[in-house]
């Protein structure tokens, strides 16, 4: 590693840290909704929950409301568009665990999505000669299988520096598609039709979950997203989440501080993979048809664009980014053809000009921890802090 990376040597580290803390606290102009995050955090817990309930109710009502302006252009069914958006949002939430929390670049996320889709298809479609199980059971099964693949891929590569993971996952994304073409059991381009769906019939005796009706699929996926969000939020605040952030910020420092980085990296990768598999299974159910043409690497980059656009490390941002990436081509049909070009350029521009994305993650988590620590030890320790500061200055002057 070259010396340009990693922490720079600052003569007076305590003062610099205090400055960084102040900066983190006083920084207002980050994000396109300045101050919103702070206002939100200032609200009492129960008011937050109340607002969240309102947002959730509106989200559930979206397919019925069909709001003008927002609705998709003619030719793109709004309910099905919503279902697709929700699947993309779920994908982005899963990828955000890998890229956003743990800072691992997974460029073959579509492979996990594909494995999930194929799991759902091969265990439910009448085209498949194998064991058939109810569709809903394929959701946990898809998660388990993709998690297995995640560990299989993660264990050899995560011991190394993060960038090897990028190329290995990139290769894996393409290999899954090639294998789906070669292996006869996966039926290549012919694919699997009539993938299963959850049970239930309406008053007329027709099944509720039809491929042509996006609403129930949207509701199902939205429910899954909410559950995953709650779990991911808990993880984020737990020891695991703190370990991920430590790894993302400085892997060597985390390792020295006793964080088993390899273990937590594999966890992040496997959890991300399993959410990818889950969304793949939902996608297969909604579309009802799975073949090898849907899982090219371009889709993978689209997923990454969703996370980066929304704000790496922010789960709400991931949902926003995922929905936008699915929504924009359906809302503006004229540019749908260029969506890959647009999102590719967007990736570069965001990284250069606005690396935090639309909804920046709360980077001040670490600064917040330090502030709390300083506040606790301040009264009796103030002199000692002074002494170390002076010492630092002297060392710096030499």
């Amino acid at each position, binding site marked *: 590693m070259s010396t340009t990376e990693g922490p720079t040597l600052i003569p007076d580290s305590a003062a610099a840290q205090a400055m960084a803390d102040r900066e983190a606290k006083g920084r207002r102009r980050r994000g396109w909704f300045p101050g919103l995050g702070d206002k939100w955090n200032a609200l009492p817990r129960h008011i937050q929950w109340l607002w969240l309930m309102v947002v959730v109710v509106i989200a559930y009502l979206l397919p019925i409301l069909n709001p003008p302006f927002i609705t998709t252009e003619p030719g793109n069914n709004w309910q099905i568009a919503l279902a697709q958006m929700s699947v993309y949002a779920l994908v982005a939430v899963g990828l955000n665990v890998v890229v956003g929390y743990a800072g691992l670049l997974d460029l073959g996320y579509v492979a996990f999505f594909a494995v999930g889709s194929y799991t759902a298809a091969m265990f439910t479609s009448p085209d498949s000669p194998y064991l058939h199980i109810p569709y809903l059971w394929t959701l946990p099964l898809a998660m388990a299988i993709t998690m297995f693949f995640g560990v299989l891929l993660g264990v*050899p590569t995560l*011991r190394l520096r993060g960038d090897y993971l990028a190329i*290995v996952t990139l*290769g894996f994304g393409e290999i899954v598609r090639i294998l789906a*073409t*070669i292996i006869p059991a996966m039926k*290549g381009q012919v694919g699997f039709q009539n993938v299963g769906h959850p049970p239930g019939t309406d008053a007329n005796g027709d099944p509720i979950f039809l491929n042509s009706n996006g609403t129930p699929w949207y509701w199902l996926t939205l429910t899954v997203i909410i559950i995953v969000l709650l779990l991911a939020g808990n993880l984020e605040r737990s020891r695991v989440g703190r370990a991920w952030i430590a790894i993302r910020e400085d892997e060597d420092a985390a390792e020295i501080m006793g964080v088993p980085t390899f273990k937590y990296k594999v966890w992040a990768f496997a959890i991300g993979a399993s959410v990818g598999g889950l969304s793949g299974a939902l996608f297969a159910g909604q579309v009802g048809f799975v073949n090898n043409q849907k899982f090219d690497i371009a889709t993978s980059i689209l997923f990454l664009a969703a996370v980066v656009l929304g704000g790496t490390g922010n789960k709400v941002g991931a949902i926003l980014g995922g929905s936008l990436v699915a929504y924009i081509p359906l809302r503006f049909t004229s540019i749908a053809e260029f969506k890959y070009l647009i999102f590719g350029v967007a*990736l570069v521009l965001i990284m250069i000009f606005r*690396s935090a994305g639309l909804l920046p993650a709360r980077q001040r988590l670490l600064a917040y921890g330090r502030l709390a620590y300083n506040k606790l030890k301040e009264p009796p320790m103030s002199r000692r802090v002074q002494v170390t500061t002076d010492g630092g200055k002297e060392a710096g002057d030499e």
Partner: protein
Amino acid sequence: MISEAIPSLIHAVPMAVPMDDTWITFDVNSLAENFWSSTFDGLTFGAIYALVALGYTLVYGVLNLINFAHSEVFIVGCYGVFFTLSALNFGPSAPHLPFWAIVGNLLLALVVAVIASALTAVIVERVAYKPLRRRKAPRLAFLITAIGVSFAIQYLIYWWRGPSPEAALTMFRPTPIFDVFGTIVDSQQLVIIIAAVILMVATDQFIRRSKTGRGIRAVAQDPDTATLMGVNKEKIILTTFAIGGLLAGAAALFYVMKIPSGVQYNGGFILGVKAFAAAVLGGIGNVRGALLGGLLIGLIGNYGQVLLGSSQWTDVVAFVVLVLVLVVRPDGILGTSLGKSKA
């Protein structure tokens, strides 16, 4: 059906066409029969991989960055070759030309491809990576930018030229030169391997002996100290990208010679992954390692496809090799450091 899915990435080896029900074989006889022909073919592809791998290795050595856009630098070179050949009125079947006319055409195509690729590489560096360096962006930002650039260039070409591969243009008819163990080596294979090896030796010597080469090694070893010692870091980085682009342009010419129908917007992508695998196999950041790794990946891929019975296995085999190398010997065969290589 199968060939429709991935038209450009298949190395056409006609003896390895699988039956419908035998999607995977373990045909040692076939390998023994075709051993020499697949060796020569593998070496040809290996030479191409090695040239592309050099670009990855140099940039990785200097910047610690996987330059995903390098596969697009390569494919831009392929388009350079394609347009030169179209301008020279080449068609699907090779015309009968005198020897010197063939050499002239090849050199012209080479020059165009090299300029196109090197320019692309330099522009990518200036537009995408330099602003990030100035901002001291984290590693992840570099990688995401790299894949974004790769993607943007791919779909820029897609937007311009459409999804289907360009018409196949052949430059000259491969003529048998000599045979080894009953296998004919043709002029095409010979030209590619010899030219590629010359280029690689030249690159190696350039890095080891020239002043700029010393600068590249110095920056790879320690950018800050190199700057203090009077090395212009930005200029060195730009030179590194240009050299990588130049070699990718040469590889593009050989690739179009070998697979005339391979000029497609995403045609460089898998080749890029394989070239990177080659760089890792030889030891990333190591110039001679890239050469060795490229040839090995070419050979292993070709043996694998003959053994397993389908040309599509080439990519899978190369990928498995990459993962195995990372597990067993992540430093590669010759070890990883551009900076530590002796002058």
